[in-house]
């Protein structure tokens, strides 16, 4: 323990003042790196995006004339913008719904008294350390329309080759699979942690009432997991609607397919800003539109998730579980 004691006994006022200043200022000093960085590289760019979106602004030429909302009206008339929206939402729904359900099921499996817990937990988390780009490249080969692994395996069962790249929905399924590959294990562990925090008395009481495993899962586990599910869905929304890496490397040209069948909004931002058009103004306009949509969907998700599980949740936490069992919870 360091003790730089230099006898300030005589009330050395200069030292005392310095010490008081230290106490007063230090907290602000310690938290300042975050706030400075966020102000300069987080908040300012967000507002500046809006400013740029009101201008003619090119990658090469820089700032041009102020044109109001022209960039927005231009973008909203583009077919590719709407196709990007369609693709983004389709991929997002396909991945987030299956991911949440799969993670819930897998967490329930892991939440048993199994052997070698850490081994299995590490097993499900392994894909998380692989870069999305690497996952994208590997899976784009596995999902190759010709001579791909998935179609090869499907061939064993007499299924005709699927047009994973050429098809619209097919390509969305393939990309959603990549997302799920990387994130399902992560979300599983989040759910698992939440499941372990559920008091075992609830299950004991349910057992006395003769509730089977499925019933316990539906009437205790899921309602108790509500805050966690809301959290997972919200984060999945914020991340999922910005998806870029996996679809970008789903083929080598990175435009989202010949018919832009898997081009996402973020890919569209890149294409408008850094691709052929080199229009920062329009790219910024798309960014702001996506920003507003993410917020809207986030709020919507929150409301929906809250409603879905609130029917059960209102009853379970406070009351003893046996009274819960007597009622028929809204599924």
């Amino acid at each position: 323990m360091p003790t730089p004691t230099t006898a300030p006994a005589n009330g050395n006022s200069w030292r005392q003042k310095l010490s008081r200043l230290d106490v007063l200022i230090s907290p602000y000093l310690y938290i300042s790196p975050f706030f400075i960085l966020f102000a300069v590289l987080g908040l300012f760019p967000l507002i500046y995006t809006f400013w740029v979106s009101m201008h003619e602004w090119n990658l090469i030429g820089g700032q041009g004339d102020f044109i109001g909302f022209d960039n927005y009206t231009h973008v909203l008339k583009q077919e590719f913008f709407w196709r990007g929206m369609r693709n983004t939402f389709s991929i997002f729904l396909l991945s987030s719904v299956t991911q949440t359900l799969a993670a819930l099921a897998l967490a329930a499996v892991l939440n048993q008294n199994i052997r070698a817990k850490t081994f299995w937990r590490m097993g499900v988390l392994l894909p998380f350390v692989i870069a999305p780009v690497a996952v994208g490249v590997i899976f784009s080969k596995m999902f190759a329309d010709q001579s791909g692994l998935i179609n090869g395996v499907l061939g064993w069962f007499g299924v005709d080759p699927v047009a994973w790249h050429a098809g619209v929905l097919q390509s969305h399924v393939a990309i959603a699979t990549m997302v799920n590959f990387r994130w399902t294990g992560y979300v599983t562990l989040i759910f698992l942690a939440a499941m372990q925090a559920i008091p075992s008395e609830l299950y004991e009481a349910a057992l006395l009432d003769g509730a089977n495993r499925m019933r316990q899962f539906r009437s205790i586990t899921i309602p108790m997991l509500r805050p966690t599910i809301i959290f997972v869905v919200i984060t999945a929304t914020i991340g999922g609607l910005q998806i870029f890496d996996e679809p970008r490397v789903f083929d080598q040209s990175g435009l989202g397919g010949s018919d832009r069948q898997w081009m996402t909004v973020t890919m569209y931002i890149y294409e408008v800003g850094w691709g052929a058009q080199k229009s920062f103004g329009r790219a910024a306009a798309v960014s702001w539109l996506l920003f507003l949509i993410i917020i809207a969907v986030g709020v919507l998700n929150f409301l929906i998730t809250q409603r879905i599980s609130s029917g059960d949740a209102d009853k379970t936490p406070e009351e003893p579980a046996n009274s819960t069992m007597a009622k028929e919870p809204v599924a």
Partner: protein
Amino acid sequence: MSSTQFAGGVAGPGAAKAVKRREERAAKGGWGRGRTKSAAGSRPGWLTYTILALVMMVSAYPLYYSFLLGSSDSVTIAQNPIPSLIPDGNFLENVQRVVSSDIKFWKAVANSVIAATITSLAVVFFSTLAGYAFSKLRFRGRGPLLVFVVATMAVPTQLSVVPLFILMSKLGWTGRLEAIIIPGLVTAFGVFWMTQYLESALPYELIEAARVDGCSMIRAFWHVAFPAARPAATMLGLFTFIGSWTAFFWPFIALGSSNPTLPVAIQLLQASYFKDYSLILAGVTVAALPLVVAFIFAGRQLVAGVMQGAVKG
């Protein structure tokens, strides 16, 4: 019912092997966390382990598939959609071709290592500092400021790429590592994470003792708070390292092909050699390998980190 009151010690790799040898229904009550879901917290049956084994295969196979193709050659790959489970012998040769290709492989490795190392060290330091202030020091505006930090986590910053790029151009940082390091020096997640941890892990008495001994504020932090924060700081460092190592969108825009990180190099490899999957996937395998090896050693902490923090990022 709560007969299995064993504190939450977790099974080690030895136990993992034991499972593989299928000696399932041996001694009752081991490292159970007092689970009392079914009768006497009994061991689940073979179905559970079959499911887990399948999940394990799904987890591990894509990477192994990448290695299989990376050790093959393009003719074999074109002829066999389903690769043989035994790798061919061309892996090192393919890696050699990746290294000597024009994607600047070594530069990408160096860039990834430098960026990930600096970012994780900085995040750990600044986040611990801020977390210490938020959890243990008294100052005006503490509550609202912390709420603000948490709120910023929900801001989709990826959408500010346009002005960020303009800013970086003005600073002359495009194509330079500063462009990807500086924005990631401290994160809201890190601050929140360390605040949460120090709140419970660091007793006020320790800080007071140091202060009574005449430590300045920063010395008290450095000698008392920082050591106490080590377990959470390690996890935060791991997460940040992984995040930096796997990041693509912003490095892709800010750095470009002249000064790539590994993910950017992988994309380049795919774009320039798109017919040659043995080459591409050898590169992918090599790029993924460092984190996979690290995961074997630190995976336990990572699992604990995810379960404690339960925050995606």
